[in-house]
């Protein structure tokens, strides 16, 4: 910090000289911070960060196995946009917990960088002449898709994790198709601008840019200070958000993020709940021992089992997390129940060649009251129809009498209050 303490006061702008009133005039923009270097640093951070967001977003889309069955498919018209879909693995079991935790937490952490980047280039919105050539006009339209797309994606994501469904339509198609519109503009912008950004980062002097104010106000911040300010905002968001991917004291550090703070309860079933039984209209009469029966269907065979009969089947343990598309997750919980492939065997399938399964819940409403699992998920020895968690019977909010738990699957595919399972190729 070598700023001279005794430099003469810069004459106050405003008394004798009038600052231009219109934002189309370069003199309107007074901040001494604006310039290619500042914009380029933020741009390069966003280039890396948004690429990770896009990839983890596509990964999450694939994790739902949308091509497997219409019940998993929230975007049936995806066409070529699902070109990369692959069989979602069950290993490592924390895979979705990691990719989706990164997607949401990184998205939140990047918000200050995005806002700073948009601030740094705002004078260009008012540039004159508004259009210099056909290429310039098209680039400006592309920038509308870029800025509108970025804000659309961040806004829908931030609202969705807070269960505030204000956006016009279902989150899945909006966020998925919106991401592709945004990404088309993002790649173009990156190809057109990254070479200049890298040049700017190598050469620290940037007086000859349209972003530099011709009549800068005296600084209140160094450029490094401004970057520290942006980074500090990101750091604040990181430390008040990241804890929602862990149990216990770490979750308490997620002070403002949904599913942060204290756990919903104590004891074996005290961990995070996505949707409570009451909110899904699940009553204790329909889950009681007298009323509830699990219907297992296979080709030409149907089996009905009470909970007591399920308990007489071989029970196995699996330590698996719950990981939600909203970015929160729990640590490993200790589940105990019947292997899905053993249930498939009850309706005639060989244990070593299990089929896909369609799982239906008692719940009558909700986008994921039915979910399909692929044969690799059914065949995994850790994939259970869980009856116990952490040594106690499931609580109603965690899916009593029985719920699915599959390694690495997104939370909503771990159907709760299971009523019917239909094995067969989907």
């Amino acid at each position, binding site marked *: 910090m070598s700023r001279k303490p005794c430099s003469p006061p810069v004459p106050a702008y405003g008394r004798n000289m009038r600052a231009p009133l219109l934002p189309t005039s370069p003199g309107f923009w007074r901040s001494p911070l604006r310039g290619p270097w500042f914009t380029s640093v933020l741009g390069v951070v966003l280039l890396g960060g948004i690429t990770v967001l896009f990839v983890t977003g596509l990964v999450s889309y694939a994790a739902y196995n949308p091509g497997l069955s219409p019940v998993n498919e929230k975007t049936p*018209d995806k*066409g*070529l*946009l699902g070109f990369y879909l692959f069989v979602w693995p069950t290993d490592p079991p924390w895979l979705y917990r990691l990719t989706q935790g990164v997607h949401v937490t990184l998205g*939140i952490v990047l*918000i200050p960088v995005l*806002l700073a980047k*948009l*601030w740094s280039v705002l004078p260009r919105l008012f540039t004159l002449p508004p259009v*210099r*050539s*056909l*290429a*310039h006009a*098209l680039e400006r*339209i*592309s920038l509308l*898709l870029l*800025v*509108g797309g970025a*804000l*659309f994606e961040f806004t829908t994501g*931030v*609202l969705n994790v*807070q*269960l*505030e469904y204000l956006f*016009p*339509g279902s989150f899945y*198609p909006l966020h998925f*198709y*919106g991401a*592709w*519109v945004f990404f*088309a*503009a993002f790649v*173009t912008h990156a*190809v*057109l601008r990254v070479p200049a950004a890298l040049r700017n980062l190598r050469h620290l002097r940037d007086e000859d840019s349209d972003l530099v104010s011709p009549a800068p106000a*005296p600084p*209140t*911040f160094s450029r490094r*200070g401004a970057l520290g*300010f942006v980074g*500090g*905002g990101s750091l*604040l*968001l990181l430390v*008040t958000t990241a804890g929602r991917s862990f149990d216990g004291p770490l979750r308490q550090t997620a002070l*403002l*993020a*949904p*599913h942060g*703070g*204290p756990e919903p*309860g104590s004891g074996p079933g005290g961990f*995070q*709940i996505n949707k*409570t039984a009451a*909110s899904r209209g699940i009553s204790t009469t329909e889950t009681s021992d007298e009323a509830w029966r699990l219907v297992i269907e296979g080709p030409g065979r149907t089996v009905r089992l009470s909970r007591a009969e399920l308990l007489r089947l071989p029970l196995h343990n699996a330590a698996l997390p719950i990981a939600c598309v909203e970015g929160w997750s729990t640590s490993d919980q200790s589940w105990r129940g019947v292997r899905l492939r053993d249930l498939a065997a009850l309706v005639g399938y060989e244990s070593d060649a299990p089929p896909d399964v369609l799982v239906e819940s008692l719940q009558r409403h909700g986008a994921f009251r039915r979910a399909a699992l692929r044969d690799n998920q059914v065949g995994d020895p850790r994939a259970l129809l869980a009856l116990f968690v952490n040594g106690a019977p499931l609580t109603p909010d965690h899916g009593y009498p029985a719920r699915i738990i599959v390694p690495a699957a997104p939370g909503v595919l771990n159907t709760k209050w299971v009523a019917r399972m239909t094995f067969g190729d989907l």
Partner: protein
Amino acid sequence: MRRSAMRRLPLRRYMGSPFPLLLLACSFALAGYAGVRLFADDWFSVALWFVGAALVHDLVLLPLYAGADRVVTRALGVLGRREWTVFVRVPAAFSGLLLLIWFPLISGQAADRYRSATALSGDGFLSRWLLITAVLFGGSAVALLLRSARLRRTTKERSPVVH
């Protein structure tokens, strides 16, 4: 030959160079492919959100916070304390950022749905945000005091040598 070269020059000026044009055409084609799917259900509302997000940010949110910053800088400048700006800007911006992102939870408008779905309390967010805001401004005040104390000390130590 020469004539066509002379003609090409203004054309290129109005068109721009070919590589960006091709790239933009490719980009619009992909955006269009995804866009017809994005707009399939309720095109007007989605378009409103897409374009509105950019307009609200550029023409409302940004002018608001930049204007507030300018007011603070000027006011402190009038008091002869322009260098204090940072100590107001940083906590105010961080607090505002948290409010902006978590507004549905902090304002309580999502509280009922949140409590019903997750069995977690939806009420603590406002008080937690206020406490974080208090810590941010308090920390900034302490930093300002420390800075003033250090400046006083260094000027005291230096003054006999300098003058």
